[in-house]
């Protein structure tokens, strides 16, 4: 129950709602009861005072003293009407002149409140059976003398009526609370229907049905943000999924070519007896293909890990120009063979993982050396730009169509579709650059201006 209370919204809301209704109903009942009871007491009091007045008038008649003395029962008959009306008449000296008290109740005698007492002079008492009673005392003229008249009443029927009334109120409150609980549960069930249909829809989402979206029509406005968020999530998932499955397809394709080569050339070789030199050439060619596959696997693993943030960064401040210099040095031989010059310039401190920074720069430079015009200069530049340190590699070469630019960092994307893999590139170099920048919280970008192509790496300084 406790666990359900914590988990079930319907139960929780129903309980709270029931409590509210029960409180409101009993509050209203108590208020009405008190108002009713107060009114009843007030009326009884007025009646009691009327009785007193009646006795006073009766005593004021000529011959009343005589009548009281000789025929007290006539007086009593005149007085009574209700059995539980008690009257006592006391002389000024305290002598009891008359006492109408059929049940022999004992009640206190309040001090006399004069000829015309108000409700304030009325006192309360309790009968022997525990019923409430009221009593009032006033003065009256009897013949020539002054007497005190005490009028009291017991209200036996009143406590029974009040008790019944209280029971009724409690019952009504309980019934309304119960009805509220029932209604609340029903309404909640109905009200939460969109949630259930949302859940039913979510249960249907599978890789193949990611294209489906929650229907916003008829959705309560409170649930709109949730439905929108879920739809946005579905859209992101779908995009990611499409990218991933596209990636798997690319991967299979990229693997297919080298594997086909390995298989084909080996089988052709084995079909006939060959010279040792032929076998050696085959093995060497196979090794080259296999090395490329191994590099591809290595790159893929790196990308997968980088995407899941599993690469541990050892960030440290590095002199950017030194790092550019090291990578330029590495590519110096290759650049020279292609008649290219490498120029490093600028300077700043860059906060980066040394090995990863080198890897990113090497990939950019490898790309630049491959595509630069013969005899041109590749410029490596580092500078501070606001809160970032930007390292860039710029080369001139065959222009890349603007349509391709945006995709250059995508895996296996090759701007020149016809270009073969003869140069040993895996098609993953630039996506590794972009992954390394993402790990650093930085950004890799490319700009093209005519024949000039500029790749830049922006590292945040903190």
């Amino acid at each position, binding site marked *: 129950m406790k666990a359900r209370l914590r988990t079930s919204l319907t139960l929780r809301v129903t309980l709270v709602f029931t409590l509210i209704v029960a409180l409101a109903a009993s509050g209203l009942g108590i208020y009405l009861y008190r108002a009713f009871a107060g009114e009843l007491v007030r009326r009884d009091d007025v009646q009691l005072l009327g009785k007193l007045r009646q006795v006073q008038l009766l005593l004021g008649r000529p011959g009343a003293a005589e009548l009281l003395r000789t025929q007290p029962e006539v007086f009593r008959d005149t007085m009574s009407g209700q059995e539980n009306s008690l009257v006592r008449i006391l002389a000024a000296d305290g002598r009891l002149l008359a006492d109408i008290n059929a049940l022999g109740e004992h009640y206190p005698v309040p001090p006399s409140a004069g000829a015309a007492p108000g409700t304030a002079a009325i006192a309360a008492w309790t009968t022997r059976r525990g019923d409430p009673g009221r009593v009032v005392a006033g003065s009256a003229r009897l013949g020539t003398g002054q007497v005190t008249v005490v009028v009291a009443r017991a209200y036996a029927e009143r406590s029974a009526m009040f008790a019944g009334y209280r029971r009724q109120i409690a019952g009504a409150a309980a019934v309304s609370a119960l009805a509220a609980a029932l209604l609340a549960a029903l309404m909640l069930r109905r009200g939460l229907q969109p949630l259930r249909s949302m859940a039913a829809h979510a249960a249907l989402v599978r890789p193949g049905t990611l294209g489906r979206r929650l229907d916003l029509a008829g959705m309560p406005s409170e649930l709109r943000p949730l439905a929108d968020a879920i739809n946005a999530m579905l859209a992101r998932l779908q995009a990611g999924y499409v990218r991933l499955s596209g990636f798997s397809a690319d991967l299979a394709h990229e693997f297919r070519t080298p594997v086909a080569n390995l298989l084909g050339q080996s089988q052709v070789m084995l079909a006939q007896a060959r010279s040792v030199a032929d076998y*050696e050439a085959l*093995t*060497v060619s*196979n*090794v*080259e293909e*296999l*090395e490329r596959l*191994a*590099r591809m*696997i*290595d*790159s893929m*693993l790196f990308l997968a890990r980088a995407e899941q943030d*599993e690469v*541990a960064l050892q960030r440290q401040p590095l002199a950017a120009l030194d790092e550019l210099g*090291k990578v330029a*040095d*590495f*590519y*110096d*031989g*290759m650049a*020279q*063979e292609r008649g290219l010059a490498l120029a490093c310039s600028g300077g700043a401190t860059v906060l980066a993982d040394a*090995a990863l920074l*080198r*890897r990113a720069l*090497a990939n950019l430079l*490898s790309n630049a050396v491959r595509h630069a015009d013969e005899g041109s200069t590749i410029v490596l530049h580092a500078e501070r730009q606001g809160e970032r340190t930007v390292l860039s590699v710029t080369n001139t070469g065959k222009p890349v169509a603007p349509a391709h630019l945006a995709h250059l960092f995508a895996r296996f994307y090759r701007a020149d579709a016809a270009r073969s893999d003869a*140069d*040993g590139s895996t098609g993953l170099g630039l996506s590794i650059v972009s992954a390394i920048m993402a790990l650093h919280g930085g950004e890799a970008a490319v700009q093209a201006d005519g024949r000039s192509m500029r790749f830049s790496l922006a590292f945040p300084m903190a």
Partner: protein
Amino acid sequence: MALLPEHAMAILVIEDEPKTGDYLQRGLGESGFAVRLARNGRDGLFIAREEEIELVVLDVMLPRMDGWQVLEALRADPATEGIPVLFLTARDEVEDRVRGLELGADDYLVKPFAFVELLARIRTLLRRGPVREEELIRIGDMEIDVLRRRVRRGAQPVVLTAQEFALLHLLARRQGQVLSRSLIASQVWDMNFDSDTNVIDAAVRRLRRKIDDPFTDKLIHTRRGMGYVCEQDAAR
């Protein structure tokens, strides 16, 4: 026996994958080691305890007794605790590497690896103690003065850039050993990732233009599909 080079150091290969086991046995045997091959962990452990073994190449994924257990057992036994262990793993997970090194492995390689890379690691592990850096290296008529950074072939001095010298020094220091391109990239340029192989080829070509091209006796040789080696005897 005495005629065998490197006095035929005994290497135990524990590997269950048949092809891998076979080529390791063959390759290491042809590289001058006496190779014992065990196809499962229990046999491997038995051989390590019973025979004079100087290094263990241990695959992590083994049937019955896995590589970690073998490693623990090796380190727990006083007779085998000092044997260097190089483990091979197909899972390049940081935890795997840390676990292996914590259990007392001396080095590791992630599959797929280049055979020359394995050979280089094995030689490093077997070359116990600090390596005495030679101050003067002679290969054929080439003389390298390491301290003064001067190179000459016969009477003729050869002027090299710092990069070229570092590359030549690495090749000469490990003369007779085939060095893979990635090892060269790592040692000379501190580039510890698989980069363009062309870069190393270009650098070696540049070095050769100065060291080999003007002379009839070639010293730097390409081992196709593997890497480069520096030695006097061109005929392998």
